[in-house]
């Protein structure tokens, strides 16, 4: 077998290694592309940026592990932004299996900024009945969550002292892998005029654009690209932003592999 023919029979382990290095090297070297953030992401960023320190932000975890690659980086970037700006974070969720993902990110970013549970952030958890929860949050949070996820009464938490409904919340941010985002708009925005930013997977995001055009939401973060944009705006080197060059690298590498494979194929065929 000469060199050209060998190109057609590269061992799969070498290909695995190439893929592995193609992802890990750009991340380790922190290679970044200067990509102009999409307008709707910038808009979301600026809305959070505008909030005075001490305002409350409500974040809803409406996804689970299967949408983690796209939405988890988004959540972390948003949390970084909030804590950096000394905003208070109130987290809840409508997908029970996704809640631990939200909680992990919350605890970790809070720790990084030295924030205190109950004073700077709180994790309310999950209550069944999506629409009912959203409507009642507009009246009085205590009607839905009289205690946080651990069972501590929320009246005993300093963060919740002056917070009763959407009026006391600066921005509501929903991270969506399904149709819960539409319901946030319908129940929290339309009824109570809550200010909403939605983050969504690449599959869901197109359905949410009409709300942005109608000014019913003030920002939209869509897919891995949206997450990368938010990370770049907050100057967080997260998996989405750092991952973009890795994406391009792998796509180019795969095409090169295809070309090499074909070279090998033609060399072998000519021999025959």
């Amino acid at each position: 077998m000469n060199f050209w023919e060998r190109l057609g029979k590269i061992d799969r382990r070498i290909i695995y290694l190439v893929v592995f290095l193609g992802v890990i090297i750009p991340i380790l070297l922190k290679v970044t592309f200067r990509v102009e953030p999409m307008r709707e992401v910038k808009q979301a960023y600026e809305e959070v940026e505008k909030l005075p320190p001490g305002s409350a932000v409500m974040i809803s975890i409406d996804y689970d592990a299967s949408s983690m690659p796209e939405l988890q980086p988004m959540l972390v970037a948003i949390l970084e932004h909030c804590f950096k700006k000394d905003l208070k974070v109130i987290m809840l969720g409508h997908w029970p299996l996704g809640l631990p993902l939200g909680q992990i990110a919350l605890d970790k970013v809070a720790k990084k900024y030295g924030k205190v549970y109950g004073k700077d952030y709180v994790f309310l958890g999950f209550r069944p009945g999506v629409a009912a929860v959203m409507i009642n949050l507009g009246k009085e949070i205590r009607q839905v969550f009289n205690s946080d996820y651990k069972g501590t009464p929320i009246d005993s938490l300093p963060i919740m002292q002056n917070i009763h409904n959407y009026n006391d919340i600066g921005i509501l941010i929903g991270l969506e892998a399904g149709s819960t985002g539409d319901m946030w708009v319908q129940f929290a925005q339309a009824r109570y005029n809550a200010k909403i930013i939605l983050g969504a997977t690449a599959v869901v995001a197109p359905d949410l654009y009409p709300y942005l055009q109608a000014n019913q939401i003030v920002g939209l973060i869509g897919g891995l690209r949206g997450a990368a944009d938010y990370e770049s705006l907050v100057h967080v080197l997260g998996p989405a932003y750092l991952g973009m060059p890795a994406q391009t690298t792998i796509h180019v590498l795969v095409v090169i592999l295809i070309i090499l494979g074909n070279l090998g194929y033609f060399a072998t065929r000519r021999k025959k």
Partner: protein
Amino acid sequence: MANVIWTWIAAGLTLAIFSFLYKDNPFYKLAEHIYVGSSAAFWFIYLWYFDVKPKLVDAWLQNTGFEKYILIVPAILAVLMLTRFIPTISWLSRWAIAFTVGMGAGLGITGALQGFLVPQLQATLLPIWVNVSDKFTVNLGYSLNNFILVVGTIATIFYFYFSKEHRGGLGYASKVGITFIMIAFGASFGYTVMARISLLIGRLFFLLHDWLHLV
């Protein structure tokens, strides 16, 4: 502290699965068996809390009259399924299987009619002459797109014509069909790559960031 230990466990399991790429080895075997065993239990618990309990136990307790007693039917079917534990009457389990198969066949018809056939048919009835805004001038791009869409769909259908040999006109049409199918498969393959790479990025970022704190 607890989280550090758990992160190490998660990282260990992650690496054990990755090691399969090189070859089968004791680490992968261990991770695989833990995964199969624990996930079997996980979905068992899940099924209990999210399906059987609300749909049978809670429904029985909350409903009255017809809605309550009709639940005896699925309960009987479930018991029939379990007759497989007793070889002499295990043939009764076929009654329960027959119900699920019949249900599948019924849904197969309604789903195909409503979900596939009618909407797809409707969507393919396209004009191959599209005007530029409201003027009577052909919009070549759109018209051509519609034409390709219709021809491609019809040619693909011809490829699935079974009861005649693919020769002559049919042979030619089915060849065009397979060409469309190949382009579609290539495109769809290429389209998926990005999503798959982002999964790997997510995993490697976990290792580099959460576990090793390198990034």
